[in-house]
């Protein structure tokens, strides 16, 4: 158990290091000149005094060889310092930390809604006796994954902020402002979960032990919820890491649509101003979240399914393939 834990933590640290490295080289090999960007303060790049540029390069260490810059950045990153924003001059880590709480509220609420809603739709698509009802409900998840996040957000705004003014259109004030963004963000994640779960449920309902449950006279509800759902939920549980990552990514668009303050807005702003250190910090944070969630999922997994033992030499369940219908694509 301890050895397993150490190995998984080691893997997690490796992924974080590699994510940092890839993001660093992608961002710092950029064709534009960071010093000119700093000098212009995120605005239009205008004529800047060459001496001033040289001074800025020296100040930010941009005049050194790339590998030296990388080594220093990596050492600093180990202490939690991901560089200084080109635009505001503040520490990138603190900017991200400041924006994070609002986004955590949003993604947390969306995660709960996605899990509850996704599970409800998945169960509802196998539960009814009427065939047409099952078919109609099975069509919902594929529809949900085809909806662009920005489109869902704008349509919700249109109906529930403008036509029927129930919810505020913009801002972070109070729980009411969280309702529409949460629904927007939860739609694709919930649909994805429902897709995986309903496929898993259909497979489970054909298992011999379900037959046994029917035979001993268990009610329809009991067979579905107590017997089938519990086992079917386990494979769906492994996509949690990808789901949380997807929610962080989806927050970029959602926060833009609803003009909310948060990590997503900060990201868009930083991309617009080519504020490299802040973008790097956001990427590293998202990788960190993914690593932690995946690790927790892996550790909780055997508690849900006693057949799986941690010591067994297995590769960690690979979540994203599950969204790709692994049984169909890779089989």
């Amino acid at each position, binding site marked *: 158990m301890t050895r397993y834990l150490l190995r998984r933590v080691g893997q997690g640290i490796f992924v974080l290091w590699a994510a940092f490295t890839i993001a660093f080289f992608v961002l710092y090999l950029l064709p534009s000149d960071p010093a000119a960007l700093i000098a212009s303060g995120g605005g239009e790049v205008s004529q800047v005094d060459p001496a001033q540029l040289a001074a800025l390069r020296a100040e930010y260490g941009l005049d050194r060889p790339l590998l030296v810059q990388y080594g220093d950045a990596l050492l600093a990153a180990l202490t939690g310092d991901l560089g200084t924003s080109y635009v505001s001059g503040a520490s990138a880590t603190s900017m991200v930390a400041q924006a994070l709480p609002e986004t955590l509220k949003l993604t947390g609420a969306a995660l709960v809604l996605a899990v509850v809603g996704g599970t409800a739709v998945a169960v509802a698509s196998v539960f009814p006796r009427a065939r047409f009802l099952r078919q109609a409900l099975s069509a919902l998840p594929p529809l949900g994954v*085809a909806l*662009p996040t920005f489109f869902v957000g704008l349509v919700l705004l249109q109906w529930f902020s403008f036509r029927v003014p129930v919810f505020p259109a913009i801002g972070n004030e109070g729980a009411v402002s969280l309702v529409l963004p949460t629904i927007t963000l939860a739609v694709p994640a919930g649909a994805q979960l429902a897709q995986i779960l309903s496929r898993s449920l259909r497979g489970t309902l054909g298992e011999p032990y379900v037959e046994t449950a029917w035979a001993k006279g268990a009610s329809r509800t009991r067979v579905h919820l107590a017997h089938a759902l519990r086992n079917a939920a386990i494979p769906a549980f492994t996509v949690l890491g990808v789901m949380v990552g997807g929610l962080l990514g989806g927050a970029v668009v959602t926060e833009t649509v609803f003009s909310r303050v948060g990590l997503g807005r900060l990201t*868009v702003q930083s991309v617009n101003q080519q*504020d490299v250190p802040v973008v790097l910090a956001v*990427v590293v944070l998202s990788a960190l979240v*993914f690593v932690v969630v995946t690790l927790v999922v892996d550790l909780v997994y055997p508690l849900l399914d006693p057949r799986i033992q941690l010591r067994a030499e297995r590769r960690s369940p690979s979540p994203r393939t599950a969204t790709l219908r692994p049984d*169909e694509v890779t089989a």
Partner: protein
Amino acid sequence: MTLQTLTRPDTDAAGTSAAAAHPRTPAARRGLRAARHVLRRPGLLVAVAVLLLVAAWAVVPQAFTAQDPLVGVPADRLQAPSGAHWFGTDHLGRDVYARVVHGASLTLRTTALAVVVGLVVGSLLGLLAGFLRGWVDDVIGRLVDVLLAIPSILLSLAIITALGFGPVKVAIAVGIGSVATFARVMRAEVLRVSTSVYVEAARASGLRWPAVLGRHVLPNSSGPVIALVALDFGTAVLAVSALSFLGYGTPPPAPEWGALVSGGRDYLATAWWLTTLPGLVIVAVVLAANRVSRALEKTGEDQ
């Protein structure tokens, strides 16, 4: 002699009619079978029709609308959908349907390029990993794990920060975001095929590796990858239009689909058609691509 001349027209007629019912070339037979397969499934038929229509929009937009996508008639501004303007008009009096039709080529070209980037880079990585195995497989496997750890839109945004804005850059960014899935599927397929008996037989009879790869491994591992192309096309339409919604695609007034939806944001209260109708077009294309992908997977399994 007379008998022959008498019978020849008959046999000829019989021969040609038989050829029409059962085309001789394998390609034609396969085409016919595919057409019959599609015709029997109304949902799939609609999906194929949607994709064909949108492809036609992209190739010959003038054939579908006579209106100008960039120059409007100010007197007709913000009109609701009607017979004259199917999707209504925007704040400059431009016909929204014309803009959607003309925007198809922009959005689909970016999407197609993104899929090609993901397919080529991803398949190559997967092929190398599955074929060479050993440390190459380890290194590529780790790389794929890392790419999967970063949400694809954030990876795309990081690449856009580095490269700058524009349709080609958006395509590259979205394509890199899907490299990992292609690599994964391709690797699994190559592993499966290259341990099969016929590949071993080909090797044993002295065929060189490049020939084995080209003649046996690639053709037999392409099925799931092709299904993934269709699936990834839908995902890429979503990603490309999201990035163009955020303003990283072709600058206005170009009618890229995401930008069209974004342009309607200021008129949500008064002109619902500006966001809803272009948005529904995007939804239709993604749904159609996903439906076709599912059909391709199914046929792959049946074989």
